[in-house]
């Protein structure tokens, strides 16, 4: 095999998402130099960051990690996991590190593990803010110190540098806190002096595993980076990468499909060409990486916006359905009056969201459809500064949601509640509030690395 190439094995888009074990066997046979996998994302919402809680169950993660750790040990290649525990919080890194430690002990594997922590203290960031070193990304405006202080968790998204430093420090397994999806795959080839343009572009293409193939469910992919470009192939022999499937992946979850900012610079694929090598392998050349004059770290932060209680009922009566918006407006009006009368709360003390599922809950006023639905689910979401208030308001709503008639009805209908009790407490509700970058002098400045050295072979 060409010694001047680096092969990255990406088994799946997310640790804990599962993959066929054969995907790893084939990748090792094809000469993989590193295994890289993402462990998190903001894509499932602010709760996972704000509450520092993983989206995956322990059993799922353990199943994936056991296969990956054994493969890394057998093949003597590094394993890199990014954005541990979904949000990439310190608790998420410790969670994955704990599972790793158990597997290594149970399997008798001697691997040195580096944990890289990316959580940020608001007080330290406030100093950066005061120094003018924090800047908004569109569509946001300037940041207030109080916004930083209101976050339950803030993470900085690391680039490849802290991961590369951990590998150079002797780590065989790198468990990174919040990292860019691409940095996880780019770190090892960059350390081995592969060119930045092809490395970053390849890293972007493989970050979701099989998503860049014709069968995204078929398992992982192998990217081979060399001095002129990269080649990409699926690890399932029945799946294919085509120029269209690879190029189309640049569109996925990107606001701009040609230029993407990393801490160290910008990936630019405007001049990239995609060519079929055979019916399942694609060659990409012409990718560029423009180093930035200022190294920046993107911040993500989530805070508790309040507490929520949900109530839910369903309507099948054609007369109400024919007047459903009028009915929902009446529910909102009467509920507001009752809450003021019984709980002494003015409308600015809480918020209501009445969603008509089956009518226009998903798209609201932008829904293009017309005409009454066959049935409609009415979701009442109450948001207040504490749980007891949110639940009290939802409870006041209960007889209205059960019996409210339209203005022209001469009788009281009864709607179809699916549960008793009707109210479900959702607990604290989180919101993302940071979309800003901080200027840093060194690319590893905001991150802390701890090593757990392998015990010498027994």
């Amino acid at each position, binding site marked *: 095999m060409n010694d001047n190439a680096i092969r990255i094995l990406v088994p799946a888009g997310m640790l804990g998402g599962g993959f066929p074990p054969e995907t790893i066997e084939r990748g090792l046979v094809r000469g993989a130099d590193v295994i890289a996998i993402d462990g998190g994302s903001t894509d499932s919402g602010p709760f996972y960051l704000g509450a520092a809680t993983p989206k995956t169950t322990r059993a799922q993660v353990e199943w994936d990690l056991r296969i990956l750790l054994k493969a890394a040990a057998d093949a003597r290649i590094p394993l890199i996991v990014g954005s541990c525990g979904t949000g990439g919080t310190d608790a998420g890194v410790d969670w994955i590190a704990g599972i790793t430690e158990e597997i290594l002990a149970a399997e008798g594997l001697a691997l040195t593990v580096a944990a890289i922590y990316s959580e940020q203290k608001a007080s330290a960031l406030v100093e950066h803010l005061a120094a003018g070193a924090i800047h908004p990304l569109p569509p*946001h405006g300037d940041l207030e110190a109080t916004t930083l202080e209101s976050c339950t968790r803030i993470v900085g998204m690391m680039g490849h540098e802290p991961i590369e430093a951990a590998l150079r420090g002797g780590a065989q397994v790198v468990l990174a806190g919040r990292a860019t999806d691409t940095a996880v795959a780019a770190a090892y080839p960059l350390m081995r002096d592969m060119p930045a343009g092809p490395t970053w572009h390849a890293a972007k293409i493989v970050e979701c595993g099989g998503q860049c193939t014709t069968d995204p469910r078929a398992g992982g992919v192998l990217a081979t980076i060399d001095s002129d470009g990269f080649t990409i192939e699926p690890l399932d022999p029945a799946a294919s990468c085509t120029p269209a499937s690879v190029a*189309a992946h640049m569109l996925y979850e990107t606001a701009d499909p040609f230029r993407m900012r990393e801490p160290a610079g910008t990936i630019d694929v405007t001049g990239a060409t995609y060519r079929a090598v055979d019916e399942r392998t694609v060659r990409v050349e012409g990718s560029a990486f423009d180093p930035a004059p200022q190294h920046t770290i993107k911040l*993500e932060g989530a805070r508790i*916006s*309040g507490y929520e209680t949900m109530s839910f009922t369903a309507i099948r009566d054609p007369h109400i359905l024919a007047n459903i918006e009028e009915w929902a407006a009446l529910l909102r009006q009467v509920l507001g009056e009752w809450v003021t009368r019984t709980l002494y709360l003015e409308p600015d003390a809480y918020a209501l*969201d009445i969603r008509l599922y089956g009518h226009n809950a998903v*798209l609201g006023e932008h829904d293009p459809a017309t005409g009454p639905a066959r049935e409609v689910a009415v979701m009442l979401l109450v*948001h207040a500064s504490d749980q007891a208030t949110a639940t009290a308001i939802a409870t006041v709503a209960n007889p209205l949601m059960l019996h409210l008639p339209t203005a022209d009805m001469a009788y009281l209908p009864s709607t179809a509640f699916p549960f008793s009790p009707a109210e479900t407490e959702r607990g604290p509700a989180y919101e*993302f509030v940071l979309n800003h970058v901080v200027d840093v002098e060194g690319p590893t400045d905001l991150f802390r690395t701890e090593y757990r050295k392998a015990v010498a072979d027994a």
Partner: protein
Amino acid sequence: MPETLGDLALEVRSKNAGPFWTTMELFMRDEVGYAAAADEDFLNEEVIARLYGTPAEQVRIFRIPALNVVKISFPRPVPQGGFRDRDVHSGQHHVPLALLIPPAAGARRSGDAD
């Protein structure tokens, strides 16, 4: 029935691009479909602004003939997962776009002044 953009496409999809942006793609079936979707008189920033209630100056449109793709990105009206967000992954927001009906190919003006 007149053909919608969705009828002329292999796939129309929408998704978050980070917590503060929605992005959507029209993967058109062929060059004819692409020409319909890429027609700036028919589909432009103002049309997207009306369709989704977002400021036109923040809408970004990428026309990619090599892939027969038109990609559209704009800031989310509500941040992902916040109170009043009803589509945490922005996964169903492509529907109003897919239902747009382009002018019939014959009626489309190709000779407009540049």
